[in-house]
């Protein structure tokens, strides 16, 4: 392939997504889990913009804007929850957060 096509962007996107997912699964620290989530959202953004560019349509890019908004809101609320949780539990490790079970 001589030029960079939509497929290459998709590969980058899926790799980023995979890294994010591995982060969610493997990290115990909830801060890092949140970061990984952000990374996954970013991966989706890349794919969206690539498709948007590919089909010469603005909709994908506009969606990226909304995803960023939601991500920002999510991070702020998530971090606030994390802080509250930390104050209560003195821990940010996911294996300690099993109160829904039993």
């Amino acid at each position, binding site marked *: 392939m001589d030029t960079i096509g939509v497929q290459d962007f998709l590969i980058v996107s899926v790799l980023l997504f995979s890294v994010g997912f591995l982060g969610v699964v493997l990290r115990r620290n909830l801060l890092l889990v949140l*970061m990984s989530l952000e990374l996954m959202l970013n991966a989706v953004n890349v794919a969206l913009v690539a498709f948007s560019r590919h089909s010469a349509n603005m909709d994908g890019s506009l969606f990226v804007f909304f995803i960023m908004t939601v991500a920002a809101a999510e991070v702020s609320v998530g971090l606030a929850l994390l802080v*509250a949780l930390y104050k209560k539990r003195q821990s940010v490790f996911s294996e300690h957060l099993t109160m829904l079970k039993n």
Partner: protein
Amino acid sequence: MILSRNPVTAAMFMILSLVGVASLFVLLEAFFLAVLQVLVYAGAVMVLFLFIIMLMDVGPDSGKGAKLSKKRILSGFIALLGVGLLTVLTLEYSGVATVATDSADHWQDVTEETSAAGANIVFSKSVKSFGYGLFTKYMLPLQVAGFLLLAAMVGVIVLSKKTDDVDAHNKADGPSPGTTNPQSEEA
């Protein structure tokens, strides 16, 4: 990023990858989004993360849980498997998608024109068309997003105000991870 045990290091790597994504946006001629990416993520979100990391004073991930247990190795393995599947599928899908449009590597020309409201908004580099799309076709979602941000703000304020109560309860109950007292939480 995900391999570093120190949260601060991880955050630094995260910033790196976010900037990388921004550069990808530039490559895709979505300049406004690239700027936004840097501003919102690197500028706001990551600062927030770092702030919290420092506030909580979380050290490197170590101690009992730090060692890779059999279970975590297994879960990592399964995750890798799933991710591999995902990659294969994506490639396959992109094949389908590009075949469907029958011009695999052909970027359509970018024009500066903007189309009528509600119709297909043609991709363009300009911020103007971006705003146009937002305030015509996506007016309602924009409002909803605004409300979402407002709700998030109120939620965060409430959560951080409540910490006083939680502190008071913590002093009474004592920190005891793993056990909860639902009534005290309700109060």
